[in-house]
C-alpha cells in the first residue's frame, strides 16, 4: 500500500464549541475546546460514554461544523470533509452501503477519486486481505458478522489511502486476537507510511498501547481533562510494551481520570 502524497498536514481545533438542539432542548456538548493533532502521531481520544468523542471526531473530519470556533487543516479552515481524511465510523453497520457487495463497498470511495476500476478492485482486495476478509469480498454486508462488518469499514478507510485517518471505536466488535493484529496495523501505518491517525476508543489499554498521546475528554459540556504523552517509542509490542511500568502507570492515570467522569458521576449528577 502506498500513499499518493504524504504532505505535512495537521488538524487543529481551536476554541471549538458544539451544541445540539435549540431553545430549551439545547445541549452544549463541547465547549471551548482546543486540540492540535500532530502530523504522524497516533492520537487517542478517550472519555466516558456520551462525553462527545464522536462529536469531536466529526468536527475534525469536517462532517459537522462547530457552533463556534474553527477546525483547520494546515492553514485551511475546514467546513466540509477534505480529501486528506479517511473516516471509520462508530456506526459501521449504517455506514456500509447495503446494495454493494463487500469489495464494492471498499472500492467505492476510490471511484469518486477516479481511480481506474482494476486498480480500485485490487486496492479493495488488498485492504480486505489485511483485515482478514480476503474471502468475503463477494458477500453482502448483511451476510457478515458484526466484527466482519466492522473490518470492512476499516478496510474501506485503508483503501482510501489518505494521509489522515479518523477512527471511531474501530475495534469495538473484534476479538482480542484480531484486535491485536489491527492495532499493530495502525502502528505500521504510522511508522511506515507516516499517516496521522486519531483513534476514539473506550479501551484504555488500547489507547495507551496505540497512542503517542492520549487525550482524555470529560465533563459536561466536555473539555480536555488530560493530555498524556506516551513515551513508549514508535516500535511497540503487544506483550512487552503492555508490561512496561510506563504503560501501567499511564493506564492507571487515564483510568482514574475517566472514573472521575464516568457513569456514577452522571447518575449522581442527574
Amino acid at each position: 500500500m502506498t500513499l499518493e502524497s504524504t504532505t505535512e498536514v495537521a488538524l487543529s481545533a481551536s476554541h471549538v464549541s458544539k451544541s445540539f438542539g435549540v431553545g430549551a432542548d439545547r445541549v452544549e456538548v463541547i465547549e471551548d475546546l482546543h486540540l492540535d493533532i500532530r502530523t504522524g502521531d497516533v492520537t487517542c481520544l478517550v472519555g466516558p460514554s456520551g462525553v462527545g468523542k464522536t462529536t469531536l471526531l466529526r468536527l475534525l473530519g469536517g462532517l459537522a461544523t462547530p457552533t463556534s470556533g474553527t477546525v483547520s487543516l494546515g492553514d485551511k479552515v475546514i467546513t466540509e470533509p477534505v480529501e486528506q481524511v479517511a473516516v471509520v465510523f462508530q456506526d459501521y453497520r449504517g455506514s456500509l452501503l447495503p446494495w454493494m457487495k463487500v469489495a464494492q463497498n471498499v472500492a467505492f470511495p476510490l471511484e469518486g477519486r477516479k481511480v481506474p476500476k482494476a486498480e480500485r478492485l485490487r486496492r479493495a482486495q488488498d485492504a480486505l486481505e489485511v483485515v482478514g476478509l480476503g474471502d468475503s469480498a463477494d458477500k453482502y454486508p448483511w451476510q457478515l458478522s458484526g466484527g466482519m462488518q466492522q473490518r470492512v469499514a476499516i478496510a474501506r478507510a485503508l483503501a482510501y489511502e489518505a494521509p489522515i485517518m479518523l477512527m471511531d471505536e474501530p475495534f469495538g466488535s473484534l476479538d482480542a486476537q484480531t484486535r491485536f493484529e489491527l492495532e499493530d496495523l495502525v502502528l505500521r501505518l504510522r511508522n511506515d507510511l507516516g499517516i496521522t491517525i486519531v483513534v476514539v476508543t473506550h479501551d484504555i489499554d488500547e489507547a495507551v498501547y496505540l497512542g503517542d498521546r492520549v487525550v482524555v475528554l470529560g465533563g459536561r459540556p466536555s473539555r480536555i481533562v488530560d493530555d498524556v504523552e506516551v513515551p513508549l517509542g514508535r516500535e511497540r509490542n503487544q506483550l512487552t510494551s503492555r508490561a512496561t511500568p510506563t504503560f501501567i502507570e499511564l493506564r492507571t492515570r487515564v483510568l482514574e481520570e475517566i472514573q472521575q467522569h464516568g457513569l456514577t458521576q452522571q447518575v449522581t449528577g442527574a
Partner: protein
Amino acid sequence: MTWTQTIRSSAAASQRRGATPGIMLWRVGVFVAGIALWAVIAASGVVPAGLVPAPSSVVVTLAQQVVTVEYWQAVGLTVWGALIGLLAAAVVGIAVGVITGASTAAELSTRFLVDFGRAFPAVALIAVLVLILGRGLELKSTLVFVAVVFPILLQTQQGVRRVPSSVIETARAFRTPRALLVRKVMLPSATPSILTGLRLGASVGILVAIATEVLSGSPGIGNQITDAQMGANSALSFAYIVTAGFLGFAVNIGLEKLQSVLLRWRPAMGGEN
C-alpha cells in the same frame, strides 16, 4: 403454525428465487376459485346477462379476437401510447425526483407545480385537449405522461429524501462526487420506492391510454370497448377488458423481474434464517 413461524418460513421462502411449486398451486387455486365465482354470478342472473357474460363466452370471444389483425392493432396502439408516455414520465419523473429530492430549494420551488399538477384532472379536459393535440398518439401519450409522471416523481423524491443519514454521511466523508452520489447512493437507496412508482405508473398508464381512447375515440383497446358496449356485446367488451388486465399483469411481471435484479442486495424480511 403460529404467526411468527409463518412469517419466518415465508421469509425463507421468499429468499428463494421465483415462485415455488406450492405458490404456483395456490395461484392456480385462486384462479380457479375466481373463475368459478364469476361463472356462478353470471349464471345465477343476479346481474343481467347483458352486463356480465359467462366466462366461457368471454374466452371464446377472446380466442376469436386474438387471431385477428384488428385485435393486435388495437392492443398495439394502446400499448404504444402508454409506453411512450410511461417512458417519458419515467425519465422526467426520476430525474426531477432526484433533483428535488436532493435539494430542498428545488423541492420548495417546484412544490406548487408538482402538487397542482398531480391533482390536475387532465382527463376531464379531453374535449379541450383534442382541440390542441388532435386524437392521435400525442394526445394519448401526453395524458399518460401527465398522469404517470407525478407518482414516479414523488416516489423518487421521497425515496431519495429517505436515504439513511448514516449512508449520506459516509458518502460525504469520502467526498463522493455528485454524479456518483446520485448513481451509486441515492438511486439504489431509492430503488424500492421508485419501482413502486413505476409499478403504479405502468398500470395507470395503460388505464389512462384506454380511458383516452374511450373518451376521444382515438383507436385502441378503449375504442374497441366502446364499440362493443354500444353494440351491447358484453362478451367482446370483456374480452378487451381482460386484455387490459393481462397487459398490466405482463408489465408488472417485467417490473418484478427488474426488481428482483435491482434489489438482490436486500436480505429477506424478518431476518435471515
